[in-house]
Each structure stands twice: as C-alpha cells, then as structure tokens.
C-alpha cells in the first residue's frame, strides 16, 4: 500500500469519545496486573514458608531478551506515531515489532532449554517452579500481543478497514508487557 495520509476513523462514535478497545485494554491491564501481583505475592510467601528455597543463576540470555523486548516497545511506539502520517511506514515498524517479539519468545524458549539442561524442571524446586510459571505465563501474554499485531497489520491492508484505536490499544498492551517483564525479572533476580 502506498504511503497515504490517514484520517482517524472511529466508526460512528464522536472523536471525543474513548474507544472501547482502548478502555478494554486498560481494564485487561488492570486484571493482568492483579494476577501477576497474586503470583509474585505467592512467591514472597512461599519463599518464607519453607527452608527449601535455593538461589539459582538466571540464564544470561534473559538480559538480552529484556533488551529485545524494550526495543520492541520503542518500535511499536514509532509505528503508532508513524501511523498518523504514513500507513506503509507504520506497517514496516509493526513488522519489526513482530519480529522482535518473536525473537523475545525464542530467547525465552532458549532460557527454558538452558535450565532444563542444568536439571532444573518445573517441580525441581520452588524457585524453578516460580521461574517457569511466571515466564511461561508472561510468554503466553506476549503471544497474545503478537496475535494482536498480526490483526492490526491485517487491518492496515485497506484504509477502510483501518481503526486507529486498534494500534493504540495494541501499543498500550505491549508497553505494559515490557514493563511487566522488567518487574518479573527484578522479582526473579532478587528472589532466586
């Protein structure tokens, strides 16, 4: 699709109105925050409840993954801003975000593989249990975000299909997941 100026199309709603997609994503962010707060509170309580908690070294690839995810947060923000002026440019940045997101997942899979080769499985110790639970559930949310990007990219195929709210919502979700990952990494780093 050639570069073209986009008029934000918000259906029949007035421009002053918040989009349901954006409200919905903020509500989802609140729920996911609550869930991970429950998981990490459980981690703190579990650590204090038994004497079987052993520190383990996190695989180094996690730090590279963090850089990749934070970079993807920048690229999706660029895509969102480019979208105001150029659909083609936005598609490029969205594809880049999608690639970085997939790279993050591959990196996480590698980290799981590393732990397994060290003999650390889900049920090996409480810290490995929490490591797998937190990272796998975060990865599932990332997967959801990637699906959202694929949906957004498909919607950009035609200007008539295009809704600005879609990328706004996807971007909020993605930034949140990047922030959530940094939080989880800090929790795992501090506690393990």
């Amino acid at each position, binding site marked *: 699709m050639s570069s073209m100026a986009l008029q934000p199309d918000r259906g029949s*709603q007035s421009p002053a*109105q918040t989009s349901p997609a954006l*409200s919905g994503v903020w509500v989802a962010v609140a*729920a996911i925050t609550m869930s991970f707060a*429950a998981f990490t509170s*459980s981690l703190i309580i*579990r650590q204090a409840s*038994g004497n079987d908690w052993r520190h383990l070294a996190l695989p180094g690839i996690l730090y590279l993954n963090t850089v990749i995810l934070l970079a993807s947060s920048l690229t999706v923000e660029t895509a969102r801003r480019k979208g105001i002026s150029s659909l083609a440019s936005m598609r490029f940045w969205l594809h880049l975000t999608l690639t970085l997101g997939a790279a993050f997942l591959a990196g996480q899979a590698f980290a799981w593989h590393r732990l397994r080769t060290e003999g650390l499985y889900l*049920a090996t110790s409480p810290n490995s*249990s929490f490591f797998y639970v937190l990272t796998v559930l975060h990865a599932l949310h990332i997967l959801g975000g990637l699906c959202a990007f694929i949906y957004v990219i498909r919607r950009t195929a035609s200007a008539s299909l295009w809704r600005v709210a879609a990328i706004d919502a996807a971007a909020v979700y993605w930034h949140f997941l990047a922030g959530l990952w940094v939080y989880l990494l800090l929790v795992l780093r501090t506690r393990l």
Partner: protein
Amino acid sequence: MSDASAPVAHQHAAPTGLLRKYVFSLDHKMIGKQYYGLALVSVFLGMILSWLMRFHLVWTNAAIPGLRLLSKNGAPGGVMTPEYYLSLLTMHGTLMVFFVLTNAPFAGFGNYFLPIQIGAEDMAFPRFNMMSFWVTFVAFLVLIASFFIPDGPPISGWTAYAPLSAVGKDAGPGLAWGQNLWAISIGLFCVGQLLGSLNFIATTLDLRTKGMTLSRLPISTWAWFITSCIGLLAFAVLLPACVLLILDRVAGTSFFIPAGLVISDHLQPHSGGSPLLWQHLFWFFGHPEVYIAIVPAMGIVSHILMASMRKPLLSVKVVYGSMIAIGFLSYMVWGHHMFLSGMNPFSALVFSFPTLIITIPATIITMIWIGSIYGANLRFHTPALFSLGFVSVFVAGGVSGFFLAQPSLDIYLHGTYFVVGHFHMVMGVAAIFGILAGTYFWFPKMSGRMMNDTLGKIHFWLTFIGVYCIFMPFHFLGFAGNVRRYSTFVDDYLQPLLPLHKFISIAAFLTGAAQLIFLYNLIYSRFKGAPAPENPWEATSLEWSTTSPPPFDNFGGRHVVVKRGPNEYGVDGAHGDFIMQDSPEPEPAAGD
C-alpha cells in the same frame, strides 16, 4: 469521562439461523438469558443436593431411592457415606456460589439490561461476550462431570482448602480426578467472568447514549458497573490460585503442600509449601465474591423499590457512594475468614477492624431503604414483596456478621452452624431474593408476557417464611456448639439438637417445593401469560421505553437521547407520577 454523543453502530447484523440466534448468539439479550438459564438449572441442582444432605442429617440410616444410581461407592444401598456427604456439600457450595449467585444477578440480568439501560445497542465486545458465556458453560459441564467419574466429586468443600485439595487421591474420595475437574472448572469460570467484567466496564464507560452521564445511570447499572470492577480484580486472583493448585496436583510442584506430610500412611513427595497461601489467595477472591453476589442484588432491589414506592430513595448518591465503599473495603477483609487458620493472631485485629468498618456503608444503604419505605405509598406487587424480603433477610443475616467480625467470638462460632446460618441468610438467600425480585420485575420485558401475580405472592410468602424457618435455627445450633460439615450427629451433646434439625429439614423440603410454583409460573407465563405492555410498572429507565421484548437493536433504530436522571418518581408527568429518562417533557419541579 465525557458521555458518549451517539451509540456505536451495531457491530453485527441480526442473526437468521437458529444456531446463531439461540446458541452461539452475539446478542447481549440472548447471552443474558443463557446465563439466567444456566443459573436456573444450577439452582435447582444445588437445591436437590441440599435436600439430599438435609435428609441424610436427620434420617441417617434411611436409604434415598435412586441415590445408589448416582454413586455406587458414595451411596452403597442408597445411604450416603460421610465422604459422599462432603462431596455433595462441595458441589452444592460450588454450584450455588459460582453458577447461581454470580451468574444470575450479575452476568444474567447485567448482560440483558446494562446495555439497554445506557441506551446502547449491544455490549462493547459482543464476541468476548459470547465467549464468556460459553467458557462458563464448559466450566459447568466440567464441574458436573465429576458426578459421573468413579472417583466422584471432591470432598474439600467449595473453598478447596489445601493441602486436602492439593495432595491427590491419598487424601480421600474425589480428590484425584474429581478435584482436578473442580480446579479446571473454576479456572475456566474465572476466565469467563474476567471477559464479562471487561465487557461491562468498557460498555458502561464508552457506549452510553447521548445525555446519559454517569450521574444519570440507573442504580442497577451502577451496581453492575461496581460489581464488574470488583469481579475483575477478584477473579484475576482466583485464576492464579487455580493455576498453582493444578500444578501442585498434576506437575508435582509444592506451592501449597508442606514437607513431611503423611496421608494414608503415605509420605507425600512435596516440600515446603504453604497451605495458608491457598487460603490467602482464595479468600482474597472469596470475600469480594460475597459482594459480587450482593451488590447487583442491592442495585436491582433499589431500582425496583423506587418504582414501587413511587419516589426516589432518600439519597441515591449516598447509595452509590456506599456501594463503591463496599467494593473498595471488600479487598481488605479477607482475613476474617481465617481467624482459625493459624495465621498470626495479631493480624486478626487488622482484619477485624475493616470488617466492622464495612458494615457502615452496608448499614447506610439499609437505613436509606428503610427510611425511604417509611411513609411511602407502596405498590405491593410481587417484585416489591421480594425487594422488601431482600431488605429483611439482608438485615437478619447481616446482624450476625457483627458477632463473627470479633475474633474472640469467631473462634467459638466459626466451625459451627452459626456461620452456615450467617452466610446463607446474608449472601445466599438475600441474593436469591434479589434475583427473584429481578425476575418478576423484568420478566415482562424479557418475554413480552406478565407473570401471574397471585402465584408470585404465594411463592413469596412460602419462601419468605420458609427461609426464616430454615436459617434462623442455624444460629441457635451454632450457639449450642453444633459443628458444621459433619454428616451425622452421634455425639451425646448433639442429641437434644436433633428435633431442631428435623424441623429445619422439613422446612427445607417444603420451601424447596414452593420453588416449583415459581418454576411453573415462569414456564406457564412464558407461553400463556397475559401480554405485557411496554412499561407495566410505570418505571423511568430506558428499558421501559422500548417494546416488550426489545427488538434486536434494542430501540428499533431509534436514537435514544437521555434528558434526565432515572429517579423521576412522584412528579407531575404527562403519563402519571413519573417521567421517563428519554421523555422530552420539560424539567419538573421535583426530582434530581
């Protein structure tokens, strides 16, 4: 947030095929009815289970015809084992709390009426809405499946306390696959409720029609909105708890199972888990769940009372504020379920204090109801009777909460029937009265036909007297030290209490049978009831300014513009002592 200037265009066309119209429907009205139907099936199932338990408690050695067919191991010769009693207890609690008290007043009525009351054509995310119901339905099937496996349903109660719920088959019947099914079912239920809450919040914020400011929302919509906020955060905690429980059960982790646990002479291969952690996670959800059941009922009852009293409540805004305060405080009191759990005794004080504080907004709402009813020219139709009944049982059940909020008293009462009486009255029966009031009130709108008022009144009086006969004596049993969760009462000190138990059981059978009148009325009226006018109760909110039942897009293509608040009763309107929210009449002298 600014109010919407126009409702969004309908996101999906009217369905034509049967499957799309009645089964996989995207229409919020059909989804609301599906939730209600699921709750109706669940409530009768749950009631039958309570009958079986009440029968067994009193006639311990008598065989129950047909029970052997349900479970050969659990009821050999038709007499249930103590373990099977606990299985039925678990299923009764789970069905009633999750599939009735959450589904009907919140998901059922909320789905049907929230979009109409705000002037929208549908929910913000119709596909999520459909998914939310079908996930809930699968959760129901998974739960019911536990009846039909050799293992039977779990014996760990609706609270599924660990480590009993976490260790597996060594701990007793139903704790192998039965408990797995329970945990999967509740996990799925959480997903359904999260999708539903998300939809309710986004819809209320973004799809209000022109003129429908937040202060003009009907009180029932406020209640559903507040409930969806409570539900969103509560189910978001129960879901992780279920995930961890499932992992403990199937993947060998040790989140909730301590080290060195020997069960049935078998050392459990776990280490260092915290059973208390499950209770914290569960009750962090469990206490707000009480308000997920009761706040919609409060909203429904307030809505109906105003239409029956023909005047607004003394202060509607104070009721809104109190409901919000209840929602907020509901997250700070979970520990009062755990005074006996072995947690730090000093923390009991921390949880006792907000528990007493939360009674203040609840009392304010109650006083506003009673003060508003005083001197009002009440129309005593069936919905009004059930609303008054709600206020009565809410007060009767709530008062015993003051006792239980004191750790020193709770230590004596917690394991007794006093607690059973308390939560059945204040949460179970009160919310059921809210559901019944809502049913009699909104049935004409949902079906286009009136329910029979005489049968409704008979149903009300039998139920009202019946629930007091059942649940008030529970409090006395509790004071006498009658332990709950026992399937038989063989101890000497319990023998003098058996006649009271017999009275309760007979009252339970009769009150349950009285519900058949309701069921008959519901089914008969659906097909043969008198045709309902557009606004049979002369009420003001938007659902009454459309046809009965509403067309697919709710207002038949009409662009609803709201001119005033929802509580314009006792004023000089063109059609009587009320003015509809979308009526173009000039502003009256009275009202808000």
